[in-house]
């Protein structure tokens, strides 16, 4: 049976979009190039006998998406963020300001411990605003029509409800650097650094970069705080739940179906062609692959207006995250929690400096999580575009620095390692289809947010090709595991 809508990519956003459409009665076919669904939020076998959350250490869909779609997702619990300090100290941070958190902060600064609950309240409000913004359709600036302006007015009302003081503080915080923001709250460098580290997680930015106020809110929203939300049984269960719900609604997911081309007839979608040559017809195609790949490779620059091509080429990707997984004998000695090596703001900023110059950080900001005997190191910064070296040469350097840095924090770790397996940004591109290894399908930076995502004038999920819509992380609402981009795009398609 022919489908009404083809969706490219069975990552969370593609699957969320598919479910909203299927729920509205559309016949939906999801095509995924890999043999497993989930995209970056995937639990799969890796190395010899690892089975783990390979990329993303945890996450949650927006609760309203879970309830809209009646998803049977496993419970996730928020972990504390534990910053390992030089000399063996630890700073334990949670968003619920429990006694342990306050005592831990109090051990570095009494004043900061007093201010912590206020900060958490502010961040909850700020990320609440962001949540509202992410579900508000963005207008096509500079020519805003009345119907586009209306939802925006509602968003402004939302912002007003924060009260004049907090509204001002939220708006002011977006373009600030994480350092400037945290300086206004805290005196302890360790506290500022831990928050700054969360702010730059997944971004090629340092805590002194403008706009890390925004990325802090973004990551806070997706995590529901500072530490990750580990999913019982693996993050892949979220995708499993989405696939099951989709099938129950009559939708279909085809794995190992690599889309090579979006077929057009004079700027109108006719279907897709797979790598094996098979053609599947549909008058609507949504792509959850990143916008640059979708537009310049799957559609092709020759089919698109030159100014639009220019804008698509100019989307800043710049991935600089690598993963190093360690299979240990189990005696790694790590405590539970989202552990980070980010002892000072300078340390994290220096780690980022390397990326600016096309080098792998010698002293990286690490995020360390353990799942049984497997220890996973999220490594920043390891730029996709290396200067003078290539990733063939640099993998060994990456693995060495990762282990050295982690072992300096947890000395027991080194002798427990049995096998090391790493993913460079180049691997992220090749294996997971992320252009330039960018997990957000386009950096979350000020000039690529809201009505400028994925590019100015094109924030409505539409493209110059009739029947082609964008629904992945690279569009408004996207970036992260929330599913907001997929939902937003589905609403546009249902209205079209």
């Amino acid at each position, binding site marked *: 049976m022919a489908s009404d809508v083809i969706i490219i990519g069975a990552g969370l956003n593609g699957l969320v979009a598919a479910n909203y459409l299927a729920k509205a009665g559309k016949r939906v076919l999801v095509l995924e190039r890999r043999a497993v669904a989930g995209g970056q939020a995937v639990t799969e076998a890796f190395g010899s006998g690892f089975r783990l959350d390979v990329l993303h250490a945890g996450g949650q869909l927006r609760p309203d998406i879970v309830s809209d779609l009646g998803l049977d997702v496993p419970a996730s619990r928020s972990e504390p963020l534990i910053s390992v300090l030089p000399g063996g100290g630890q700073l334990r941070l949670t968003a619920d300001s429990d006694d342990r958190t306050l005592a831990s902060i109090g051990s570095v600064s009494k004043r900061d411990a007093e201010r912590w609950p206020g900060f958490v309240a502010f961040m909850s409000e700020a990320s609440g605003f962001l949540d509202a913004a992410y579900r508000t359709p963005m207008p096509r600036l500079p020519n805003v029509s009345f119907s586009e302006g209306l939802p925006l007015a509602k968003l402004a009302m939302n912002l007003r409800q924060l009260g004049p003081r907090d509204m001002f503080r939220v708006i002011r915080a977006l373009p600030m650097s994480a350092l400037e923001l945290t300086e206004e709250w805290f005196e302890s460098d360790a506290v500022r650094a831990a928050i700054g580290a969360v702010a730059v997680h997944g971004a090629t930015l340092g805590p002194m970069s403008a706009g890390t106020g925004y990325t802090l809110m973004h990551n806070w929203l997706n995590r529901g705080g500072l530490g990750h939300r580990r999913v019982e049984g693996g993050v892949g269960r979220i995708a499993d739940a989405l696939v099951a719900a989709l099938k129950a609604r009559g939708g279909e997911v085809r794995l190992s179906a690599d889309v090579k081309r979006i077929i057009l007839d*004079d*700027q109108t979608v006719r279907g897709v062609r797979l790598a094996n040559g098979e053609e599947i017809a549909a008058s609507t195609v949504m792509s959850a692959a990143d916008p640059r790949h979708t537009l*310049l490779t799957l559609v*092709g*620059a*020759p*089919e*698109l*207006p*030159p*100014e*639009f*091509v*220019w804008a698509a*080429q100019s989307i800043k990707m710049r991935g600089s995250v690598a993963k190093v997984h360690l299979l240990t004998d189990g005696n790694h000695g790590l405590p539970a929690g989202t552990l980070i090596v980010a002892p000072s703001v300078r340390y994290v900023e220096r780690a980022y400096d390397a990326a600016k110059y096309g080098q792998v950080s010698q002293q990286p900001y690490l995020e360390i999580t353990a799942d049984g005997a497997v220890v996973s190191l999220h490594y920043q910064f390891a730029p996709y575009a290396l200067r003078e070296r290539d990733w063939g040469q640099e993998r060994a350097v990456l693995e060495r620095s990762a282990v050295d840095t982690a072992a300096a924090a947890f000395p027991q770790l080194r002798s427990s390692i049995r096998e090391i397996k790493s993913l460079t940004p180049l691997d992220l591109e090749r294996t997971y289809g992320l252009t330039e290894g960018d997990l957000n399908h386009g950096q979350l930076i000020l000039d690529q947010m809201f009505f400028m995502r994925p590019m100015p004038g094109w924030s409505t999920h539409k493209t110059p090709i009739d029947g082609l819509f964008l629904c992945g992380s690279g569009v408004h609402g996207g970036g992260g595991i929330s599913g907001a981009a997929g939902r937003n795009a589905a609403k546009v398609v249902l209205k079209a």
Partner: protein
Amino acid sequence: MLSTLELKVTPFHERTSRLSVAQNWRRWAGYRVVGSYDLSLDHEYWAIRDRAALIDVSPLMKYVIEGPDAARLLHRLTPRDIDRMTVGQVAYTGWCDEEGKLIDDGTISRLGPQHFRLTAAEPSLRWLSMNAVGMDVRITELTDQVAALSLQGPKSRAVLNRVCKDKLDGLKYFRWMNTSVGNVPISVSRTGYTGDLGFELWMEADQALPVWDALMTAGDDYGITPCGILAMDMARVEAGLFMLDVDYTAAPHAWIEGQKSSPLEMGLDWAVNLDKKGYFVGRRALEREKREGSAWRMVGIEVEWEGLERLFAEVGLPPQIPSMAVRESRPIMCDGKQVGYASTSTWSPVLKKYIALAHVQRPYYEVGTSVLMEVTVEHHRKYAPAKVVKLPFYEPAWKKK
């Protein structure tokens, strides 16, 4: 040495500068070219219409486009159907932005299956490159390396037949061929900017002078005359040919939307192949305009002589008309309101008429509509009766023969 502030000179400068009695220079695309050799344009103008006029058109921007996707690039860039172009053919075309508004215009010569030459009025490398993303094609600018001469007038073919190794009798209108003058290889296209019989000659810049000399010698019997661009400006208005940033504002130069023009508005319907396959820049907008009809149109305006005479008679003068093309906006009126404007007006010596190229609004652009054109009579604004006429104003039988 040439300072960076000075205009460039063309490969023919050594000849043209000596012949230029008037020292009347004009700036053209960063080059210094002759406006007129004489103090009056008469002699040069009549060379175009009666004899053979030799015009240095080297400042034209020239690009060579080659590679497997060369045709595809031009197909995407312009509204012309490049698939229908054979090797040896030349096509005039405008090209647009995505809103279907003209950016520039020029000619495309198909030199080979995967090999084209494009001429343009404006530097176009950036736009060409932006359009070539994802294509296997090489774009080379040859503006400074290739010299160009335009030989125009009823005797131009006879002159060329004397100097070229091959006879040009078989070269049809808007076709090109390779030949040589002496031992200088040249390519000749049957094109021009005068609406007369005429040819354009393309050669390596460092071999330009012998070609000039050969033409001047061989053309002597036919009254060959070096001609500046001011006389050509009159001829091109008679031919109904418009000029970038004079008769239309290139979209990237426009301050406001209203200043832009589409090729349909400029009367280039015949060069907009909406029936061709595939995307080209501005397609959607042009399709819409075609469906809905154009709001404006470039038309010919012919001023009625008696009417003009009457206006001048009121102050006791015979009609005063500038003896060259005037690039000055003149309101066109009808039904008591302004319905358009003339962008270039000129006295046409061959037609003995006062004519203008004008942008006129629907429905007043229909041929035969009676309108008024603003003229200045002894420092007073007056309105001369005029008519909308078909373009070109002048088309001799030998133009395409």
